[in-house]
């Protein structure tokens, strides 16, 4: 074979291989994620947590979430799953400052590092701003947990045998878990379970709603208070904001 002819042929071969390898990219690039329910169309969900109203010994939101989402509790800090959890904090200065109780959940970042990281787009951001995991596609590589700077992701290290809420799914082991603002409830026009529980006991520390609508409860609270997200300097633009942090 002549050198020139050979070069030509190998060039064609390489280009062909490259095209073949790039083919799967096309549908991936063309696909956009749509929200089906009219209850969520055009919305941008967000939450404000008023720490002045959140009692230290109250776990109403945690219990409601656990029940609603069939969240596994294995009795071991290494593997327990918390879609919403509470930490008790104290200011460093002055030393005698009071303790505050802070509910932590997925921040549903506008720029979510977990969704960037996911190799199969199992974690993605819906058009209404919710960051959600497709448990049927996830391969369990845990890169999202590595990428999330907020420790908001938990992994089903063990099989979960409890299934109190048969209306909602239960995860098998091998996939990660995080808060999805109870997307299944939002799609039906209901509020997230934690928010509903907080309202039921009349604490009203969790304020949830549409950030796009200036008349919504959450927008009014943001307009009238000094709110901030956790470590906004990460540039992730959290949509869970706090009063009194």
């Amino acid at each position: 074979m002549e050198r020139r002819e050979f070069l030509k042929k190998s060039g064609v071969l390489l280009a062909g291989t490259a095209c073949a390898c790039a083919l799967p990219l096309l549908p991936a690039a063309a696909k956009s994620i749509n929200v089906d329910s009219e209850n969520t169309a055009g919305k941008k969900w967000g939450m404000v947590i008023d720490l002045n109203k959140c009692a230290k010994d109250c776990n109403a939101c945690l219990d409601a979430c656990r029940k609603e989402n069939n969240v596994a509790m294995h009795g071991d800090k290494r593997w327990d799953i918390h879609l919403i959890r509470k930490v008790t904090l104290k200011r460093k200065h002055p030393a005698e400052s009071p303790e505050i109780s802070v509910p932590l959940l997925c921040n549903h970042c506008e720029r979510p590092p977990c969704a960037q990281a996911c190799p199969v787009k199992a974690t993605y951001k819906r058009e209404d701003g919710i960051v959600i995991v497709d448990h049927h596609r996830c391969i369990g590589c845990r890169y999202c947990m590595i990428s999330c700077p907020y420790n908001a992701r938990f992994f089903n290290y063990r099989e979960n045998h409890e299934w109190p809420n048969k209306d909602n799914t239960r995860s098998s082991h091998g996939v990660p878990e995080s808060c999805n603002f109870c997307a299944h409830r939002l799609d039906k026009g209901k509020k997230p379970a934690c928010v509903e529980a907080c309202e039921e006991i009349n604490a009203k520390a969790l304020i949830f709603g549409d950030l796009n609508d200036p008349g919504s409860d959450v927008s009014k609270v943001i307009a009238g208070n000094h709110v901030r997200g956790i470590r906004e300097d990460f540039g992730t633009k959290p949509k869970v904001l706090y009063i009194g942090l």
Partner: protein
Amino acid sequence: METDFETIEGKSTQFSVLLAILAVLALAGLYATYRMYVEGIYLSGMTNRIPWGLQVILAVFYIGLSAGSLVISSLYAIFGKKEYKPFARISVFLAFLFLVAALLSIISDWGRPDRIFEPFYHLNPLSMLSINPFLYNVYMLICLVYLWAMFKEKEKLVKIIAPIAVIWAIGVHSGTGAIFGFVPRELYQSALLPPSFIAAALSSGTALMILVLLLLFKVTRRPLDENLVVRLGKLLAIFIVIVMYFVFVENAYRLYMPVSHEAGMYFLFGGFHSWVFWGGLIILGSIVPAVILFNPATVKRIPWIVVSCVLVVFGVLCERYIIVIPGQTHAPDLFPNMVVVSSALAEGYVSYSISFYEVLQALGVVGIIGFAFVLGLKLFKMMPTEAKVLKESDSVKSPSEEKELEKQTVAS
């Protein structure tokens, strides 16, 4: 000089015993992976705070080894150093196998290894873990074509594909570094990781190749010119210095910048991983081998070269550990002005310990790859009959000279 390649005989008892041991290791690894697949990966030492453990450490380690062994073949195929031709086939074969080892490690680590084809259907062009499989798969393909070309003695194809392979290898290692470098965690986030991954890959890969070659030539009783090994040792010395330079810059920057000072102090003086860093990477893995290989008296002695190669491979394994683990045990401080009094999750600094099942998995990968390597030596003509430094007279000739020679031989 023409290099003759042949298969190894593989009829001795030791050969069969070796294959049997490797097969047992492979089965043990498969068993551990099966248990984890059925019961969940809580059997590993990983937790909600440490989602990546031993398999990821080893995967990036193997990927590094893969590049290094490719370099040896490029010495011959790109730089025309014909004295390294005897090693070319083995090194590309190993490069391919190490990449398989890396992929096996990663896939056995997944929570859902049954969904192995999902990454092919659903690419995420933004994800480093999606870009990398693409790089790895094409790299394996290139390695196979490269091997085939060398077996068929297609010199021109080898000359074309060798630079492609090396350039692609650089992409593979930059991409692997980016898996960690492009993550918003204080001890991961770094633009230096991709290039420093290449450096560590070159040093560990060259060191391991030297060891493999020495061992193979000794076990199969083939003549190996010590000067060749000495030259590779000198090359290794340069790679060690480059790795140390990257490590120095990275840590100096971390300590200097107020935002990462605390994380840098934790990295250097914060627990077990600091011992791995100072003892494993810096002293044993870099300084000692560098002293040996830069000392004209010791670099000429094969036992000393073996010692330094073992230390370098160990050092880079330590480096992989301190890339993967401390970045997780040290989480970003979510509340900089607060103290965490209590939490349902382990906050602050945590620790990671390797579990029995993880070790089994790791041994399994070694078993599978070792089995394939030994069997490959028996099935394919990979072992050169001898390897020696070429004299001036029969060193590389320019293509025109070679053609002249051919004409003369044809004419005669």
